């Protein structure tokens, strides 16, 4: 129901952009010469500098970089939470000016409402658009089943472990069936064991739904394990340093993490960061 409405809303600007010849049909996300400058006490700080990239439908792309390289800033621009200083970001050919109905965000912390049940939390994005909540309930249940939490629909967040809470966050981001799923270091707050398991589960979800995903992380193995492409970002100013195509066969398992090919790619990326540090 609401998907149809969202698509109808999109038609007009979509046509306008195709006419302008800027929008490539199968690109879900396009960033063009994007720069974000912060005003800080030490003067203007360039968080993102002249960043251009595009993500095709169904692609899993990671932005990998150390803390403070501007990768979360970029995600906030895509989410419509932050205005760029110059350049712009387009989702399905439309310039992002404010949060969009067809973008789903998974945050670093689960950010669930502690006073609402798991099911109610998943339904928040539906309520936010004043859409029919009753009609969305079966879909919410289905998504909870997808993330393995069907038995916890009526529990409260503090009854769940950190990993389970983050899975609720994923179900919440998927409830509006977004064109792109943005994930801002979603597993950074979890312990190492849970983190690995979550990577595998996310791959399963991605395989089942074939969502376009923009995944932000500072973990090299996590990025390599999950992605079709890894974009390496370097800090101050935040620039794209390299693009690495991960051609490891799908579906990847924990065993593929210990394969020589996996190790070689991780090693290559690690050397990039080291060179960056050594460079004057």
């Amino acid at each position, binding site marked *: 129901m609401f998907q149809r409405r969202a698509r109808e809303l999109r038609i007009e600007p979509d046509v306008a952009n195709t006419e302008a010849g800027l929008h490539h049909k199968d690109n879900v996300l396009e960033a063009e010469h994007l720069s974000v400058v912060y005003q800080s006490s030490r003067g203007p700080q360039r968080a993102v500098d002249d960043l251009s990239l595009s993500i095709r439908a169904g692609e899993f792309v990671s932005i990998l970089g150390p803390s403070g390289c501007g990768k979360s800033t970029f995600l906030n621009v895509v*989410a*419509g*939470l932050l205005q760029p200083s110059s350049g712009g970001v387009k989702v399905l050919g439309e310039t992002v000016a*404010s*949060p*969009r*109905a067809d973008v789903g*965000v998974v*945050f670093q*912390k689960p*950010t669930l*409402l*502690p*006073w*609402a049940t798991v099911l109610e939390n998943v339904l*928040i*994005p539906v*309520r*936010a*658009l*004043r859409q029919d909540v009753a009609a969305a309930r079966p879909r919410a249940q289905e998504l909870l089943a997808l993330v393995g939490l069907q038995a916890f629909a009526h529990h*409260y967040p*503090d009854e769940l472990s950190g990993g389970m809470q983050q899975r609720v966050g994923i179900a919440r981001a998927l409830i509006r069936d977004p064109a792109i799923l943005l994930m801002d270091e979603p597993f950074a707050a979890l312990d190492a064991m849970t983190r690995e398991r979550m990577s595998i589960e996310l791959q399963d979800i991605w395989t089942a739904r074939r969502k376009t995903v923009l995944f932000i992380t500072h973990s090299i193995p996590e990025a390599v394990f999950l992605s079709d492409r890894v974009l390496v970002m370097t800090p101050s100013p935040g620039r794209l340093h390299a693009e690495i195509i991960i051609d490891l066969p799908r579906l990847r398992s924990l065993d593929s993490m210990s394969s020589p090919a996996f190790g070689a790619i991780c090693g290559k990326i690690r050397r990039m960061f080291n060179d960056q540090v050594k460079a004057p």
Partner: protein
Amino acid sequence: MRNRISSVIYPLCTFVVLVAVWQLSIELLGVPDYILPRPLAVLACLKAGYIDGEFWPHFAFTLSSTLIGYVLGCSVAIVIGAVLAESRTFEKSFYPFIVALQSMPKVALAPLIIVWFGYGIWSKIAMVALMCFFPLFVNTVAGIRQTDPALLNMMKAFSAPGWMTFQRVKLFAAAGHIFAGLQIAVVLSLIGAVVGEFVASSEGLGWLIQSSLSNFDTAQMFAALFSLVMIGLIGTTAIQVLHRRLIFWDGNKRIAAPAE
């Protein structure tokens, strides 16, 4: 279970010992009745007051003015606090005055309130409402302001309208603070009611204490005080139970709340 029994028995023992010391010291030191009444005299006064019934109208007067004033003052404060926390213009225009009012001792307003609201129950209700207003107002503003910014950011990312964020996030986030305010307001409301009755009244437990002064009836003073303590205790306990029932999600913060 053992814990529950000891939490009843221990204070009971303390109470019995205190009363015994009280009674004994009067006997041994020969303190006259008009300075300190015997516990048994207080008990007799309570019995006469509540069983023969002459205390009940006073009890009802104080209880109803406290209750009505409490509900009125607290709800007005929560509404104004919420509006102020949400609107910058409203905040800039009114906050300095509210802060100035807050630093004034509210009981000093009692004579004025009698002039404005008369000798009857309305001046007492107004006094109670005034006393309750400030803790609730301040706590509502603080509670809404300290809403986790990550939650607000999340609501924004999903394009939630402002009223929805207020209703589903900020109000709940502020609930713990609001209950802490409600707790403080119980005691303050009783102070307001008693002060109102001290200044001008012909009824109420505060008036009863005041009028006992003319014939040094300290036993009656103690009996009225005891009644006030009961109202305060029951009110505080009721708010605590409500708090625990309604605000189920922040168990740890609740224990740390200063008002408890």
